[in-house]
């Protein structure tokens, strides 16, 4: 039983929650750029939260089921068709052997998650199936899906069909606010520079990928050019010599020597990763305490979303 890739789209990668505990040998975490959509895809399907799904960036994925299964697509709105019939995202669908599942290009946002009941069955590398193309690690062979790839999964003929009511579907705005915990290196950024950073809008530049999103706007000056290389946490905002901030994402290098003005909240970084070049970003400072509360609230919300059953 499997899904066969007919068209891989621009960039489709297999992702579980990510590869943790291996940064000591230089392995980054990978994992879904939008963890909320990834988690909901698996929850709707009744899967383990770490089950492997396809992260589809921008769209254009076409797969064919070789046996019966349940399938669900969450995340950025990429019109979903099963055998050329429009189908809702955020809803578990029964598919039969031979059915063709197609995702068009995103109408807003740019990352969607296609999962099947039981998850895709690929062997983990270093404890995870997360694909990190830069490291040539994870997924089927360390890279993006290719035409003809076969994604193994279990045959499933029965199961609960669930959906997320439309009023709960996320909205992928083109203008977002990133909550930022100001960094411990902020002493290297004058009060004026910090004020500049937090009071201007920045634009997502052309150089945005799974490693980091480069933002363009008023240059931020820093009184040092570099620091002794140190670990970089998820969401860290580096300020290189040209003063244009880079928000570091899932496939970032594990250590680096650029000064950091702060670290963005993961919940907001997920929204940033849904932006394409031209998207607008504002920064707002928050305390570690407020960040902690926000994470708990989001976790609570996610676990308590109503996912009603439907019958066909």
């Amino acid at each position, binding site marked *: 039983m499997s899904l066969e890739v007919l068209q891989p789209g621009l960039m489709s990668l297999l992702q579980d929650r990510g590869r*943790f*505990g*291996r*940064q*000591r*040998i*230089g*392995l980054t*975490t990978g994992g879904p750029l939008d963890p909320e959509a990834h988690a909901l895809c698996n929850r709707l399907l009744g899967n383990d939260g770490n089950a492997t799904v396809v992260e589809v960036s921008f769209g254009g994925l076409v797969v064919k089921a070789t046996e019966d299964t349940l399938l669900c697509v969450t995340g950025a709105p990429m019109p979903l068709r099963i055998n050329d019939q429009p189908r809702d995202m955020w809803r578990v669908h029964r598919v039969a052997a031979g059915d063709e599942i197609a995702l068009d290009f995103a109408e807003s946002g740019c990352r969607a998650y296609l999962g099947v009941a039981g998850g895709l069955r690929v062997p983990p*590398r*270093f404890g995870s199936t997360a694909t990190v193309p*830069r*490291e*040539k*690690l994870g997924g089927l062979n360390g890279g993006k899906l290719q035409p003809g790839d076969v994604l193994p999964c279990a045959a499933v003929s029965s199961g609960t069909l669930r959906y997320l009511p439309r009023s709960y579907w996320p909205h992928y705005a083109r203008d977002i606010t990133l909550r930022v*915990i100001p*960094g*411990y290196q902020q002493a290297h950024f004058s009060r004026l520079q910090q004020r500049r950073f937090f009071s201007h809008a920045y634009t997502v530049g052309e150089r945005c990928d799974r490693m980091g999103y480069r933002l363009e706007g008023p240059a931020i000056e820093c009184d040092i050019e570099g620091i*002794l*290389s*140190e*670990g*970089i*946490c*998820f*969401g*860290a905002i580096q300020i290189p010599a040209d003063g244009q901030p880079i928000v570091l994402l899932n496939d970032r*290098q*594990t*250590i*680096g020597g650029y000064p950091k003005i702060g*670290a963005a*909240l*993961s919940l907001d970084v997920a929204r940033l990763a849904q932006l394409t070049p031209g998207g607008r970003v504002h920064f707002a400072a928050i305390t*570690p*305490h407020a*960040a*902690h509360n926000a*994470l*708990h609230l989001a*976790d609570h919300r996610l676990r308590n979303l109503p996912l009603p059953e439907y019958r066909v």
Partner: protein
Amino acid sequence: MELHQAGECAVMLYLGTTTSPDISARVQAAATAVERALGEHLVDLVPSYASLLIIYDPLATDHYAVAERVRQAVAGLDTTGETDSREICLPVYYDPETGADLEGLAERAGLSIQEVIALHSETEYRVYAIGFAPGFAYLGQVDERIAAPRLATPRQRVPRGAVAIADRQTAVYPAESPGGWNLIGRCPTRMFDPDAEPAMPVAVGDRVRFEPISRARFLELGGELS
């Protein structure tokens, strides 16, 4: 020692501000102590030259509790003297054939190629950090006489196993990649092999020595010249 909040689920512990074997040994000792103190709340640890990034599960604990436990764990730490670290020997075929920058580096340093090789292989290095790419170990400190700045234009392709110098650091490229370090030789030992256990022959804190080998020995050990 300084401890700072680095993000929503990370704290940064500084054990010094410079590159030295003592500070590196402290980072090592702190990593072991923090691992024990945080137990299952710990998600990942990133040791580097003088710091330790500690990543925790923010839904299972919070930054106050983590900071408190980290402080306690490192307060009683014996940070004097060298911890017992492993010594690893890496064979290197030093030659202009494998080290495109060997002649230039010798010329700039006013040394013969033999002297450069001697200075590089007679120093004991320490693994200060691993990063940049899987298995890329930063080794220091290179003798000042053969320290060399990064190339103005990085190479598009540096082969796997290339032994290189940048400033007072040296490294063996774990995989083919672009790179701007000065190439002086080639090591037949795989620095990162996802199918091996462990995947890397070295870890942060290990001591490393380079042993000059002949072309024939290099090939015998599985080295590749392409």
